[in-house]
């Protein structure tokens, strides 16, 4: 029989509390039904969306993503994916705020090139500054550079989200040491965004002390996305509990778990 210990542990971003530390994207799913099922299985409360032009003159009854992930139920995190300049990113965020009736929490990502999808840090900094002045709560996708992460925090970003590896690569956390340095200096939530491929990658990020993990491809491109969504939910919870529990000290040599005293026949 198992009894769950309640940790009453919550993620706090921009003054809002969340039970789940797993944030998920809504891209690349087979259809809306799979999107919905995977998001439900993930237990995520923060869900990212992209903004694009509506199709003019096509089926008016085409399902709308916001009917599948209603803003009444989820915290919608509009992204600025495929914006390559600060100006485009700011414009996208303002449209998102209008679309979502004044919702001010955004995921800022300004990309540098389409092969690596690495962030363009200078444009990201410029966009963050404008958005923060304009009243947005900015969760910012960035490189795993500790100095840039700190700078974004100091500017007033509500969460800093370094990549673990390139977007959609599934390579895991390629430079755990950088994430560790970022975590040591952070006063806002650090969320690994991008690069996670497996549940163990997510667990590792959480064990290190990240406040959350954001992913899309790792779930959507799994053979069974809904099952992977469930696995990721458990992985993030598992890593978080492991972090809160505090790991045992590392030692170079063995330490027996069974007592030496009272050995039979001695």
């Amino acid at each position: 029989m198992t009894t769950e210990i309640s940790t009453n542990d919550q993620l706090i971003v921009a003054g809002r509390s969340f039970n789940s530390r797993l944030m998920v994207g809504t891209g690349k799913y087979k259809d809306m039904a799979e999107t919905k099922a995977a998001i439900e299985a993930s237990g995520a409360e923060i869900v990212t969306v992209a903004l694009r032009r509506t199709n003019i003159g096509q089926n008016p009854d085409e399902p709308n993503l916001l009917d599948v992930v209603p803003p009444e139920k989820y915290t919608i995190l509009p992204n600025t994916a495929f914006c390559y300049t600060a100006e485009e990113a700011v414009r996208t965020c303002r449209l998102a705020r209008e679309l979502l009736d004044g919702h001010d929490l955004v995921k800022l990502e300004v990309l540098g090139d389409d092969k690596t999808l690495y962030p363009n840090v200078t444009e990201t900094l410029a966009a963050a500054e404008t958005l923060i002045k304009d009243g947005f709560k900015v969760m910012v996708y960035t490189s795993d550079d500790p100095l840039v992460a700190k700078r974004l925090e100091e500017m007033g970003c509500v969460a800093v989200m370094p990549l673990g590896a390139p977007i959609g690569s599934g390579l895991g956390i390629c430079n755990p040491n950088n994430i560790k340095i970022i975590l040591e200096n952070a006063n806002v939530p650090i969320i690994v965004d991008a690069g996670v491929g497996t549940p163990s990658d997510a667990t590792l990020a959480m064990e290190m002390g990240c406040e959350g993990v954001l992913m899309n491809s790792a779930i959507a491109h799994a053979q069974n996305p809904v099952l992977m969504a469930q696995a990721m939910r458990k992985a993030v919870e598992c890593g978080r509990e492991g972090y809160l529990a505090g790991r045992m000290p590392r030692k170079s040599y063995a330490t027996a778990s069974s007592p030496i005293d009272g050995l039979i026949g001695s």
Partner: protein
Amino acid sequence: MIRLTVNGESMQLFSANNVQELLDKLHLGNQRIAVELNSEIIPRSLHAKTRVREGDRIEIVRAIGGG
């Protein structure tokens, strides 16, 4: 007849006095969307009060899947 550019495509309409009428004609009147008119956001509350004029550039966006 007025000519507009909507999401990059030129469009001719017999009549559309304001943004709301344009959206209704495009069957987008009750959808979750956001509208820019000549690069300026038009809040939903002003759709019915904002005139569209010859040559206007209109962007209509919605949320889609993304990470």
